[in-house]
């Protein structure tokens, strides 16, 4: 689907989602969220400046949106793992309130009507002299320094950990693609069954949607309440779907 308009810079998945809903002049509801699902995916696809450590959060929201959209078409479709966690509609309503409040805070921040604390009198220093902390040893210092270092380490690792997480999502999609090709035919529930965590279910689901979108697979549902059959498309393009996927 073509993107019908460009949103302004966005800061996180809920911000993007809110901007899409507001620009379409929709209320926040499950139906309107489903309506903007594909636009959301397109924006995530095209955005160049999503920090790697935030990409996974965008993918989580994308998966929820696509799941909501699928459910509107196929009410029988229920995935317990995707049902878990916060309800996106509630989450977005709350987020909207805080965005509004943050604009007022910003105005106050810029107004310059600030309070001042009392200046420190330089006299104090002269009065006190040397006051070492009682009972502190050099071994205590070494222990504290080790704690400080332990606290820094995750911060240093953050970008690396994010990249590792994205790489693992890519590997997962590659793996799923192979599974579909080799089995030729599978069903939607089988597809989600092997997944262990919510993230994995989301990734599986996203992979499927990508493959459908890029015409690698065909989906077919015999009856309204039946499972969805998935099969490799006979005229699947030769290109690697990963080249076009958004992860």
């Amino acid at each position, binding site marked *: 689907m073509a993107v019908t308009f460009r949103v302004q810079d966005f*800061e996180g998945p*809920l911000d993007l989602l809110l901007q899409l809903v507001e620009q379409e002049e929709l209320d926040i509801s499950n139906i309107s969220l489903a309506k903007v699902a594909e636009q959301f995916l397109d924006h995530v696809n095209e955005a160049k400046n999503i920090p790697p450590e*935030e990409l996974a959060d965008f993918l989580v929201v994308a998966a929820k949106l696509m799941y909501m959209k699928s459910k509107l078409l196929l009410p029988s479709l229920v995935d317990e793992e995707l049902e878990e966690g916060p309800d996106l509609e509630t989450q977005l309503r709350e987020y909207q309130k805080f965005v509004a409040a943050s604009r007022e*805070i910003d105005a106050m921040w810029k107004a310059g*009507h600030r*309070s*001042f604390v009392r200046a420190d009198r330089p006299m104090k220093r002269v009065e006190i002299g040397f006051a070492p902390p009682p009972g502190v040893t050099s071994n205590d210092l070494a222990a504290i320094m080790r704690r400080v270092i332990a606290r820094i380490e995750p911060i240093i690792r953050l970008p690396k950990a994010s990249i590792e997480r994205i790489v693992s999502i890519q590997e997962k999609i590659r793996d799923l693609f192979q599974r579909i090709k080799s089995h030729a035919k599978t069903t939607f529930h089988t597809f989600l069954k092997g997944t262990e965590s919510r993230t994995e279910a989301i990734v599986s689901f996203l992979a499927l949607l990508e493959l459908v979108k890029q015409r690698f697979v065909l989906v077919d549902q015999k009856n309204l309440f039946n499972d969805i059959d998935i099969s490799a498309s006979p005229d699947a393009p030769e290109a690697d779907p990963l080249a076009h996927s958004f992860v």
Partner: protein
Amino acid sequence: MNLEAQLEAVLFAAAKPFSVRRLAELTGQSAKDVEAALASMMESLDEAESGVMLQKNGSEYELVTRPEVAEVVSQVVKAEAQGELSRPSLEALTILAYRGPLTRPELEQVRGVQSSMILRNLMIRGLVEEHEDVRLGQPTYAVTFAFLNHLGVASIESLPDYEVLRGHSAVSDVLAQLEEPKPESV
């Protein structure tokens, strides 16, 4: 001399925030009496239209100048320069101000995006601090006096629409869904 005068003198002389507990220790009075005296001090400073007000953040108190006189006071004291706030910073500060103290996963739940770098940057700027109380094994974070000072408010309760945003049940609903940890938070 009465407790209120003692507390006022201590807050004035030390020129830093004190917790109710610490003030009770220092004056040898019960926390309840200290709280009552502080409430009375807040009221009398307001009534007297003093240039000084008592600011409250959580269970801590500090004496500061009233925002209405900021212009004349800024001629004699320099406040630490704080530039503008980016949108993510503003968002995180607003959520922590109205809903804090919050753990990092709770903040991330409301923002919908991982927030460890934002929290770290706000702590380095002195606008957010880690609190003593831990929830579900996680440290909690709240806005600082430096943040309240910059806005010129006596307490977070005086922020616009405080009751509505603080007490909204839907926020609690969202947060209640947090009992299970987020999958693989980085």
